[in-house]
């Protein structure tokens, strides 16, 4: 089974801090994704990566950056956290084929105080 592991289930940070969310997958998938999930808004794509060191903006990239130095690891960075970034963050990975599903981690619930 595909395993997508997010480093923290719950995280509390302060406004202005630099925050790192880590995600690791064990199935050698080319594509990796970061979403945020908010009540009533569903899942919104922040960034995705289709190869090592490659990244593309999703639908809501403002205030975020990402890093993919190794194929199995995809990091989401909040450069200067703000309270409106309090949310559930979900990482996913998939093969680079359109008919293959994305596999999700359990999520990180991030609170910015």
């Amino acid at each position: 089974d595909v395993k997508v592991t997010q480093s923290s289930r719950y995280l509390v940070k302060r406004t202005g801090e630099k925050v790192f969310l880590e995600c690791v997958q064990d199935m050698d998938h080319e594509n990796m994704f970061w979403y945020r999930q908010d009540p009533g808004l569903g899942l919104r794509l922040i960034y995705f990566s289709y190869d090592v060191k490659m990244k593309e903006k999703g639908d809501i990239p403002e205030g975020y950056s990402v890093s993919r130095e190794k194929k199995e690891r995809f990091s989401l960075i909040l450069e200067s956290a703000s309270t409106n970034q309090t949310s559930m963050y979900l990482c996913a990975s998939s093969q680079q084929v359109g008919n293959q599903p994305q596999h999700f981690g359990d999520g990180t619930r991030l609170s910015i105080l």
Partner: protein
Amino acid sequence: AQSVTQPDIHITVSEGASLELRCNYSYGATPYLFWYVQSPGQGLQLLLKYFSGDTLVQGIKGFEAEFKRSQSSFNLRKPSVHWSDAAEYFCAVVRGGGSNYKLTFGKGTLLTVNP
């Protein structure tokens, strides 16, 4: 642009009753479609997928979905709901191409199951 609409934000059913969750998509060609389920505090788990061929697809946990091109719909069904099915359900359609396949999600339907 591709889009997904789940018209029902919240549905309540009694245990043992049948269930249908609606999903409508907007896409020019034959879409790749998915249904995911999210239990409280968890990530998303794939229930089933449709790519082509038979329009009735079977998934895990006794769920099935029917693709209807004429109605641009991909509704999820289950004949008899169990209390453990209480969760949020998301429909999704693939967008993009080449190496850049991404998913567009509906906003979800929250399912409550009464005993």
